[in-house]
Each structure stands twice: as C-alpha cells, then as structure tokens.
C-alpha cells in the first residue's frame, strides 16, 4: 500500500477531471418528443432491463458459488426431498407398463343380471367379442351354470328342489394379454362393469386383483408424500432466503436509500431462490437416475419370475422437464414468501 502516492496521483487528476455537472437526473435522459426517439428510449430501457437481470443473475450465482458448503447442503436437502417421491412415481409409471400376461392367465368373469332373457344375454356376450382387446368370449347360460355348479359343489340335491335358478348367466372373457398392460387390463374390467346388464365383473385370479388394489393405494400414498415433501422444500428454501435477507439488511437499506425500487432490492433473493430450486431439482434428478439403475435389475428379474414382460423406462424428457420446473417453481415461491413480508420501501 502506498496511500501517499495514490493520493497524489488522485489529486493531480482532480484538477483537470471536472466531469460533474449538477444536472437533475431526470433531465439527463430526456429526449425530444419524436416517435423515433421514443422507440429508441423504449429499446434502451428494455435492454437496460435485461442487462440488470443478467447482472443480478450472475451476482446471485456468484454468491452461492462463494459459499459452496451451505449451498451444496441446501441442494442436497432439496434433492432428497424431491428425489424420494420422484423415484416412487417413476416406479408407479413403470408399474403401469407392466404386461398383463402372467404364467397364470387372468380371465374376466362377467356376471349378468339374473332376470335377463337368455337370447339377449347371448347377444350381449357376442358383442363383447368385437372389442379389439378381447380374444374370446364364452357364454355360459344360467342353466349351464347351475349344472356346472351342482356338478362340483356337492349341493346337487338341494339345488334340484329350488323352483327357480338362483345363478346368473355369465361370460368368460379372455383378454389379449400379449397386447395389454396391467393398467389397460384393469381399465377393461372397469369398462365392462359399467354395462347395465352386467352385475359384476371379476378377474378370476385373485392376486392380480389384489395387485390392482395395492397399486392404487401405493399411488395415493406417493402423491400424499410428494405434496408433503414439496411443502418441506418450500419451507427450506423460504427459511434459507429469509436468513439471507436478514444478513443482508444493510445492503437492502443502502439500495433503498440510493433510490433502488423494492423490485430491485428483492431481485437477488428471487434469483437465489431460483438457483436453490433448480440446483435441488438437478440433484434430485441425479439421485433418481442412480436409484433407477440400482433397482432396475432386481425388478426385471422379479417380473420375469411371474412370467410377465416388462420394459423398465428410465425418466424421460417430460419427467426431467417436469421435475426441473417443479424445483424452480418451489424455489421462486419460497423466496417470494420470504421477501414479501420484508419491507423494501
């Protein structure tokens, strides 16, 4: 340090460098009122707008970069919170592509209304076969059902004494398993049950039916978990930014005093929120990719054991884009929550 020399240098310059004019700020940018000057003015302020955004964006990034440990910790917390539901969701997505053909083929039993005329029932059964998802449909009339039932139930004596047949006619439907996923099979069952003449539609293999219920339950749990964890991310980001705002209250008051707008003072914090959210979502994506790699093999093997086919799909572009947008959205919302309450005027 050589302050003396520096002072001398400054002092010598000072004599010639009289660049200051006491002109009110508003007058400096004033231009004549022609349209072209108006357009030039608009263009200038638009480019100034983008310039300030660029500056603030890079400054906010630098601030996070300069404090790598807390930044990475925040990213990891957000990453874990987003990755957990994301992994479970991608498992769900994959469950939906699971083929419906297993070593035991599940048929759908359509029990028709008891009072339905036989001709009508038979016609209904035939019409079902026009559905491209159905391979074959076999009609079993009420009397056939009764014969069959008494044959294997051992209640033949009792049944003969009844004046009317208590059993309904039914249709045994074999779906084209090779072309259907498990979800599509479930959809088919639901659709068939909606016909008025159908009393009940049932898969004849119980565990496949149970699988549907389990997947349904799992789906709800995953969504509930996703909502809770998104809330946690919002709070983590909000709290981080809030502390940041408090630490930088000096800066905020100076910005205020030199004529910065509230928007200007808030902007760096919104950018921080953006980076926390985006970085957190990126971290989550990496975690999801690793998790998928890790669980892919055992799942493939498990499905094979049941004789089904299955193509494990890795997260696609829509998934990646969705997760990143969610992160950014949570980041901005969290930051906004924290700067909103603070007085910037």
């Amino acid at each position: 340090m050589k302050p003396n020399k520096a002072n001398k240098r400054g002092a010598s310059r000072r004599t010639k460098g009289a660049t200051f004019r006491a002109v009110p700020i508003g007058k400096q940018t004033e231009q004549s009122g022609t349209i072209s000057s108006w357009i030039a003015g608009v263009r200038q302020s638009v480019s100034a707008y983008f310039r300030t955004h660029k500056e603030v964006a890079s400054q906010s990034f630098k601030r996070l970069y300069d404090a790598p440990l807390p930044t990475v910790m925040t990213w990891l917390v957000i990453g874990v919170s987003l990755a957990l539901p994301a992994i479970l969701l991608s498992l769900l997505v994959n469950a939906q592509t699971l083929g419906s053909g297993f070593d035991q083929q599940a048929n759908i039993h359509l029990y028709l209304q008891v009072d339905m005329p036989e001709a009508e029932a038979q016609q209904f059964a035939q019409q079902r076969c026009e559905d491209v998802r159905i391979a074959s449909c076999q009609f079993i009339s009420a009397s056939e059902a009764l014969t069959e039932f008494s044959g294997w139930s051992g209640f033949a004596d009792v049944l003969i004494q009844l004046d009317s047949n208590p059993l309904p006619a039914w249709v045994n439907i074999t779906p084209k398993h090779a072309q259907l996923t498990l979800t599509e099979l479930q959809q088919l069952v639901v659709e068939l049950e909606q016909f008025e003449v159908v009393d009940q539609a049932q898969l004849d293999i119980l565990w496949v039916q149970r699988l549907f219920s389990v997947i349904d339950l799992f789906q709800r749990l995953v969504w509930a978990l996703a909502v809770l964890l998104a809330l946690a991310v919002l709070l983590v980001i909000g709290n981080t930014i809030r502390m940041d705002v408090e630490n930088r209250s000096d800066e905020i008051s100076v910005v205020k005093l030199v004529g910065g707008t509230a928007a200007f003072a808030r902007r760096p914090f919104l950018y921080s929120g953006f980076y926390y959210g985006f970085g957190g979502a990126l971290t989550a994506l990496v975690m999801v990719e690793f998790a998928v790699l890790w669980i892919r093999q055992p799942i493939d093997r498990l499905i094979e054991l049941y004789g089904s086919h299955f193509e494990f799909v890795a997260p696609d572009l829509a998934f990646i884009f969705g997760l990143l947008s969610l992160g950014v959205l949570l980041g901005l919302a969290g930051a906004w929550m924290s700067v909103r309450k603070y007085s910037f005027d």
Partner: protein
Amino acid sequence: MIRFNRVSKRYQNGHDALDNISFSVEQGQMVFLTGHSGAGKSTLLRLISLLDRPSSGTIEINGVELLQLSGRKIPLYRRGLGVVFQEHRLLFDRSVYENVALPLRVASYSPLEIRRRVQAALDRVALLSKESLNPQELSGGEQQRVGIARVIVNTPTILLADEPTGNLDPKLSEEVMGLFQQFNQFGTTVLVATHDLALVEKMGNPNLELEHGRLLV
C-alpha cells in the same frame, strides 16, 4: 430547494426530536446544520431522505410536497438525493468500485456510463487507485470518502451529509468540505450536519442551529 413548514417529529417513545421547525434553503445554497448531540440533526436529515415521516407539518423539496409522494415515486425522488451517513454504511461484500456504482446500477445506467462516472467520482475523492480493493482494506477516512464518491456519482440536486467529517483529521475534514463546496458551485444544494463549529466558522456558510429540537435564529 428545501422548505420545512412547522415540522415536528415525535418518536414512538414520546420523545420530541423536532419541534415546530420552519426554514428554507434555496436551490444552490450550501448550509450547515449544527447543534449539540441529540439536538435532532440526524432526525431532520432522515425526514428529507424519507427514512422517516414527520408527525406534523409539511416538507417541500424542489417543489414537491413529500407527504404527497406516492410509494412508487419514492425511489425516483431518492435518486435525486445524495446522502452521506454519519456511519459510512459501505458494503463489505464488494469492491470500492461496486460500492460507488450502486446508485447507477439501481437506476439502470449503461455499463459504459457507469464506468465513466464511477471513475470520475473516485478520482474526485482521490481513490481511483483503490477501486478494486474491498472497503475493509481502507482507512476510516478513505471509507468516508468512498461514501462521498457514492453520493456524487449520481449528480444529485440535493446533497445531505450527516457528520461527514466525524472520522477525519482536520486536514481531511477541510478537504471533504472543499469537495462539498466545489460540488455546490455546480448548483447542488448542500446541507451538512456537523459538530465541528470551528470548521463551520472557517467555511463561512449560513448555519441552521438546532437545540433540543428547536431552531435557534
């Protein structure tokens, strides 16, 4: 022009910091504000910079009644003001250059214009060679001068200074006052609050004297 009309300020604890003050400072004047500690000098400057509102009375700055200034116009109004604080309030997370550039960034000046103005302002306070240092690496007097550069960079129409020479030795104090005087000669209205009566006498500018929140005539 600064015009106070029967202005009083009572703080929330019931203390009357200013009591029925009326005065006016014409455009282009340089005026001192003196008085013992606690007389209300800082309070008066805070009212002008809209960091606080008067309890009663009106303040008119360059023809604008401050009470009628809507929230959205306050930042623009403040850009026409320059305030040097009692404590310099520099930001230690950025260079001297960036500290001085802040008022220009806030007002979206072009990078070229920012460079030109910041260098000219730093030159004025003889700190051009230290533009890339952190203010923490400067002496108290140098920090005070950075604060002054930050004010003049924006060519304000009104310059307010609260004890600008509090941390400076007599020679530097005179230099700083000389800067204000120079600046005043270009038409800027200057209002300086200070304890330093010797300096005030030497400068020969008009003097508003406060005592317990009242103006002595």
